[in-house]
C-alpha cells in the first residue's frame, strides 16, 4: 500500500491500516527512542523502550497528529523527531516524579572509618581547582560565541552544525541541501572570521600581560 494511502486510512481510524503503520514504522520510532535515551544517558529507562514506543503510537492515534503529514518523504524524519521529543518529555516527567531521590551536595557521606563524615561536594571533582585557566577558557569561549553570532546565518548554521553538533561537511551538505564544496567554503570562512578576532584578542591579552 502507498504511504499516503496508508496515512489517509490511518486518519480515518482504520484499525488494519494502523496495524500496518505500526508494523512498518515501529523500527523508526524505536531507533529514535533508543538514540535519545542513549544520549540522555538515562540507564534507568533503557528497559522502558516498549512502554515509550507504545505511548508514542497511542499519542499519534489519539491526537490524530499523523493527519498533518502531506508528503511521504518527510514521514520518517518526522517520526524520529516526534519520538525523540516524546522520549525527552517522558524522561523529564518520570524524573520529576523521582526528584526526591536525588542527593543534595551538602549531604554528609560516611567514610566508613570511625564514623568520619565528609560533605559530598568535597568528594566530587570540582573545576574550581583550576580557576584561572577556567576563567581564561570561559573568556575565550565568550569571544568565540560573540563572533559566531555575528556571522551570516548560513555560515553560522554550517559552523554550529560542524563545531557544536560534530557533523561532517558531508552530513551538513545533506542537511542544508547544499553542495559539499559550498559547505566547506562556508565553514572555512566562518572559522577564518572567528580565528581573526580571536588572534586580535589573544595578541591584546599578551600585550597586557607583558606590560
Amino acid at each position: 500500500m502507498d504511504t499516503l494511502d496508508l496515512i489517509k486510512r490511518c486518519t480515518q481510524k482504520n484499525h488494519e491500516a494502523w496495524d500496518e503503520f505500526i508494523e512498518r514504522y515501529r523500527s523508526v520510532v524505536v531507533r529514535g527512542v533508543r538514540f535519545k535515551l542513549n544520549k540522555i544517558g538515562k540507564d534507568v529507562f533503557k528497559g522502558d523502550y516498549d512502554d515509550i514506543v507504545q505511548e508514542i503510537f497511542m499519542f499519534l492515534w489519539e491526537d490524530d497528529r499523523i493527519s498533518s503529514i502531506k508528503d511521504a518523504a518527510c514521514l520518517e524524519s518526522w517520526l524520529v523527531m516526534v519520538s525523540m521529543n516524546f522520549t525527552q518529555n517522558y524522561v523529564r516527567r518520570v524524573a520529576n516524579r523521582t526528584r526526591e531521590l536525588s542527593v543534595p551536595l551538602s549531604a554528609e557521606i560516611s567514610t566508613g572509618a570511625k564514623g568520619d563524615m565528609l560533605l559530598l561536594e568535597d568528594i566530587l571533582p570540582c573545576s574550581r581547582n583550576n580557576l584561572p585557566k577556567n576563567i581564561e577558557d570561559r573568556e575565550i569561549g565568550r569571544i568565540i560565541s560573540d563572533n559566531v553570532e555575528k556571522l551570516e546565518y548560513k555560515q553560522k548554521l554550517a559552523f554550529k552544525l560542524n563545531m557544536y553538533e560534530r557533523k561532517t561537511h558531508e552530513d551538513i551538505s545533506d542537511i542544508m541541501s547544499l553542495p559539499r564544496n559550498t559547505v566547506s567554503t562556508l565553514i572555512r570562512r566562518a572559522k577564518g572570521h572567528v580565528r581573526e578576532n580571536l588572534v586580535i584578542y589573544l595578541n591584546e591579552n599578551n600585550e597586557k600581560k607583558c606590560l
Partner: protein
Amino acid sequence: MNRICPSELVLSEYMSGMLSHSERETVEKHLASCDACREIVADTHTVLMKMRPFGKKSHFFSVFTGNVWFMGACALLLLSFFVPQYFVQLLVASILAALKWMFDSRTARILIAVYESIKNPSSDRDTGKDNKNTAKFLR
C-alpha cells in the same frame, strides 16, 4: 533568538528539501540561533543515516563514479599496451579523456586547490573532524 520554534513537521520538511526558498531561509535563520531545534535536526539526521543500509555514501564507489573520464583515460592507456597495432590511436584517445577529466569543473577546482596547498603549505585544511580542541571553548 526567535522563541517560536518551528514544528517537527516543518523541520522534517526542511530536512527533506520540501520547503520553498523563503521558508528554507526562515528555518535556517532560526536553526542558526536555536540550539534545541538544531540539536533535533542533527540528531534526526544521525538516526536516519544509521537506518539507511548504506547510510553514508560509499567513498570507495564515489571515486569511480565521480571520475568516469579519468577511469576511461586509464583504461585506454592500459589497452594501448595490449593492442600494439592501435597504440597511437588509443594513446591519443587516452590523452583526450584525461584532458576532458582535467577540464571538468569539479576536477579543475580540485587541481587548483592542490596547487594552492602546495604553494601555501601552512594554510589550514578543513577535514570536518579537527574540531575537538576548539569545541570545548564554544559551549
